[in-house]
């Protein structure tokens, strides 16, 4: 034991050999089940605790345990850490740890590496008893060198076996120790993180994982001749670090919501895992329903009985919930629906990133179904928007959608610790007598708003129905009534929109090009815009949080730019395709909405590759766009 250092130094003394760097992108890739994500999440948490900016992206295979040592088996995590706030996954990897030589091929397919990326590779396969594996290993070394990776072979398993009997589980913690040395992480913080990671396991498990952590650290100290110190962000408040799904879970707690009714679906489910651990201690319960339809039906019952509930799902779940969403809009029931978007259509890309549900959420129900739709652009917003959504739902007596995506759901980022105030929490169910002369839909003619009676309130008795109904809740097929009540429901959006401010432009409020985005792409877009503006380019960006109703003043903002273009992660036809022209091009989803809203010729750049956006790619695309604009002037 004594041969290992007790703690690391608090701050690294930069040397000529190891100058302090601004940021690094690290990946850990392994076979599914080897714990690369646990390692990476712990590394990210340790880094955040040391004051670094952090963003993580999980690399998740579609199957639980695909055949080992294959491209399909690649499972892992990317951690981008820096001495400033990090808002996206960045571009190519600086350093990758690979537990076998086959899984990196999956990342090469994703163009994750660059020339000079350092690869720390498990070397045990070089002496494997199978000649086939030995040959594979040799070939991979050759392949990796050809594309310019700097390979360092490391006897990970051999070293693990010096401290534990079996390295099958635990190699990830040895790697964590190694990374802690390379990035000069405080070892005591790291040990505490390991204790937290394995908090539900026995003392023996915790102890052996700490041994592995220490061993990895020490091995690196003895054998590596480089380190990458990244200094912390200078000033900072109390922070928390979590992923977007955990932030939604916290938002549920912070909103005082008492019922979360859900059905398991990737990538949304982990939000309920977080809740399941602590919900009962804060006065709430999770109902795991028999299917997606029953999940929202149960939530709607709960809403009718007085408490605004939440249901959390992903695209295919939204499709199944469609009829109930229509009922909630028609009968004016408050409800929060979170859609953690994944790749579609159909079952699509369950673990990958896409912003493909916008139009389905806006228009996916028969008839006119006005509703309020928000999209979180950061993990912090995942938290605060649940609280906001609950309030809007109750004030406007309407379903409220909160859109996030797989990028936010599994990405970890530190943000200022929320300071809960009473105002966030839902009030107790009103059981006071209902005023006898007030009907259950006492629509205000100007705002469309109405109060609602809750079962248990004397004199408030009414029958809720999804059929057209009048102000006393009676079924009514009267033509004038249906026209009028449809207008009331629509008017609520106008009323809500009047409470919103025009969005803030990032960069100058006028110029050549305006990029418009929504949801999780904000970090990547703003990073690209910032870099390009530093280069002197005339480009700004706008990020929308409210998608129904849209934030006001968009047209006034747009006309100050020569060109407006959305950047999204969903499908649009490639304008360079000879078969595609102005007349037949199908646009990306936000572009479609903005074109209709503003009658401005909004262009779009989008793809469905299932990956978060990279600032480097965006910069390339935006440069091209600016060049074309310049040529048009000439």
């Amino acid at each position, binding site marked *: 034991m004594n041969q290992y250092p007790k703690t690391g130094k608090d701050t690294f003394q930069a040397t000529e050999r190891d100058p302090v760097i601004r940021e690094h992108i690290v990946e850990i890739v392994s076979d599914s089940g080897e714990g690369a994500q646990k390692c990476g999440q712990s590394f990210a948490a340790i880094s*955040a*605790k040391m*004051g670094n900016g952090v963003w993580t992206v999980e690399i998740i295979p579609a199957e639980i345990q695909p055949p080992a040592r294959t491209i399909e088996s690649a499972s892992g995590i990317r951690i981008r850490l820096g001495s400033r706030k990090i808002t996206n996954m960045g571009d190519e990897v600086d350093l990758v740890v690979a537990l076998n030589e086959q899984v990196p091929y999956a990342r090469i397919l994703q163009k994750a590496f660059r020339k000079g990326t350092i690869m720390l590779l498990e070397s045990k396969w070089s002496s494997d008893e199978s000649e086939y594996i030995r040959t594979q290993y040799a070939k991979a070394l050759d392949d990796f060198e050809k594309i310019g990776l700097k390979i360092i072979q490391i006897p990970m398993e051999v070293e693990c076996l010096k401290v534990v009997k079996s390295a099958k589980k635990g190699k990830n913690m040895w790697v964590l120790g190694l990374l802690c040395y390379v990035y000069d992480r405080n070892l005591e913080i790291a040990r505490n993180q390991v204790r937290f990671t394995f908090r539900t396991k026995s003392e023996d498990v915790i102890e052996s994982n700490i041994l592995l952590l220490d061993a990895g650290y020490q091995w690196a100290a003895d054998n590596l001749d480089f380190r990458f110190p990244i200094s912390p962000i200078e000033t900072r408040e*109390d*922070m*928390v670090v*979590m992923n977007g799904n*955990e932030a939604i879970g*916290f938002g549920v*707690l*912070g909103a005082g919501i*008492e*019922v979360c*009714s859900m059905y398991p679906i990737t990538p949304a489910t982990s939000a309920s895992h977080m809740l399941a651990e*602590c919900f*009962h*201690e*804060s*006065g709430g*319960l999770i*109902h795991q*329903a*028999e*299917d997606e*339809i*029953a*999940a929202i*039906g*149960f*939530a*709607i*019952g*709960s*809403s*009718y*009985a007085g*408490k605004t*509930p939440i249901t959390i799902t992903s695209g295919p779940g939204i499709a199944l919930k469609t*009829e*109930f969403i229509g*009922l909630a809009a028609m009968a004016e029931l408050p409800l929060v629906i979170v859609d953690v978007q994944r790749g579609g259509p159909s079952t699509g890309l369950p673990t990958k990133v896409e912003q493909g549900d916008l139009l389905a959420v806006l228009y996916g129900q028969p008839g006119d179904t006005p509703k309020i739709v928000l999209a979180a652009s950061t993990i912090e917003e995942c938290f605060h928007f649940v609280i906001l959504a609950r309030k809007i739902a109750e004030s406007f007596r309407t379903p409220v959608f909160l859109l996030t995506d797989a990028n936010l759901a599994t990405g970890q980022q*530190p943000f200022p*610790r*929320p300071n*809960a105030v*009473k105002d966030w*929490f839902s009030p107790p169910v009103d059981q006071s007598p209902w005023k006898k002369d007030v009907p259950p839909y006492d629509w205000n003619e100007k705002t469309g708003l109405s109060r609602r009676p809750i*079962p*248990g*309130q*004397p*004199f*408030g*008795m*009414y*029958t*809720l*129905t*999804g059929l057209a109904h009048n102000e006393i809740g009676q*079924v009514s097929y009267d033509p004038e009534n249906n026209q009028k009540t449809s207008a009331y429901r629509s008017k609520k959006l106008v009323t809500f929109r009047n409470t919103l401010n025009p969005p803030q432009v990032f960069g100058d409020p006028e110029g050549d090009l305006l990029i418009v985005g929504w949801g999780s792409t904000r970090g990547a877009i703003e990073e690209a815009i910032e870099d390009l503006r530093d280069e002197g380019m005339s480009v700004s960006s706008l990020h929308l949080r409210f998608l129904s109703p849209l934030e006001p003043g968009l047209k006034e903002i747009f006309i100050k730019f020569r060109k407006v273009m959305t950047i999204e992660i969903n499908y649009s036809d490639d304008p360079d395709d000879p078969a595609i022209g102005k007349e037949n091009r199908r646009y990306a989803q936000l572009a479609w909405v903005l074109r209709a809203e503003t009658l401005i010729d909004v262009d779009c750049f989008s793809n469905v590759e299932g990956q978060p956006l990279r600032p480097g790619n965006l910069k390339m695309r935006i440069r091209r766009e600016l060049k074309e604009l310049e040529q048009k002037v000439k």
Partner: protein
Amino acid sequence: MYGIRPELLDEFPEQYYCLEDYEKVAAKWCPGCGDHAVLGNIQKLCRDEQLNPAKTVFVSGIGCSSRFPHYMKTYGFHGLHGRAFPVASGIKWRRPDLNVFVITGDGDCCSIGAGAWIHAIRYNIDMTVMLFNNEIYGLTKNQTSPTSRIGTVSSTTPLGSVLPPIHPIQTTLGVSNVSFVAQTVDWNPPHLYATLKAAYKHKGFSFIHILQRCPKFQSGLVDQYTGNKENLYLLTGNDGVELSDSMKASFKNKVEHNANDIYAARTLAEQPDRIYLGVFYRNPEARRYDEYGASNLGFTVDQKISALNKELDKFAV
């Protein structure tokens, strides 16, 4: 105060609910439809049990019978086709103070809502469930239902239906955690009333299969039902259905049945040609999901804030 002893006045209820307190508007079902009889008996039950209309919710799906909540002067939820159970479950889960009734039809429950039906039985949330089975789709005008007998001629099966029907009692008794299953008929009001009452008194998911006449689209069944007392069997025993002796005497066939015995209940349910009236099964010990739902009610905002902060500590940097 003539004739009333003043010292007993305290025991008078603050408010006494009359039938009119549950009656809203005249029902718009066809003349001769069995729904009318159930509505009248439910209103009577509400009155007799003095259910507070403000604390009572009638939940339904879609179909003829699902218009029921509109005719009750209580709270009501007339929702989506096949989805009464999830809604009713959501209403009752954390509102132990509410009396919840569910109205569903054979299409609503046994066809489009079959998945929800199975799970609602298993959840065993305290509610009184009335399945109105007239073996036909009425509101959409005469289509075969999953409970229609083989050979049923309808708009969708003009040559006669080809599949054997689902027997709702049999299906319900097959689900784990089942807690109350009874059968009655709309044309025998005393038995209907007594069964509704026994179901209401049972704490849990009380499922009542009501054989019901549809004079419009199943007129052939009406006489077969009401005219033939030969295949009507009254279940007697420990079932909680309170029938007068004269009522009991009016049944030609009686079967002594132990309602705590699920195997005996299932054996009865395997004989769909005989109509057994009464309680097939009841188990007051079955686990109730609404008890779990009501297990952590009433947290104050301060408690919630401290729970949130405690959890945030774990994620603090």
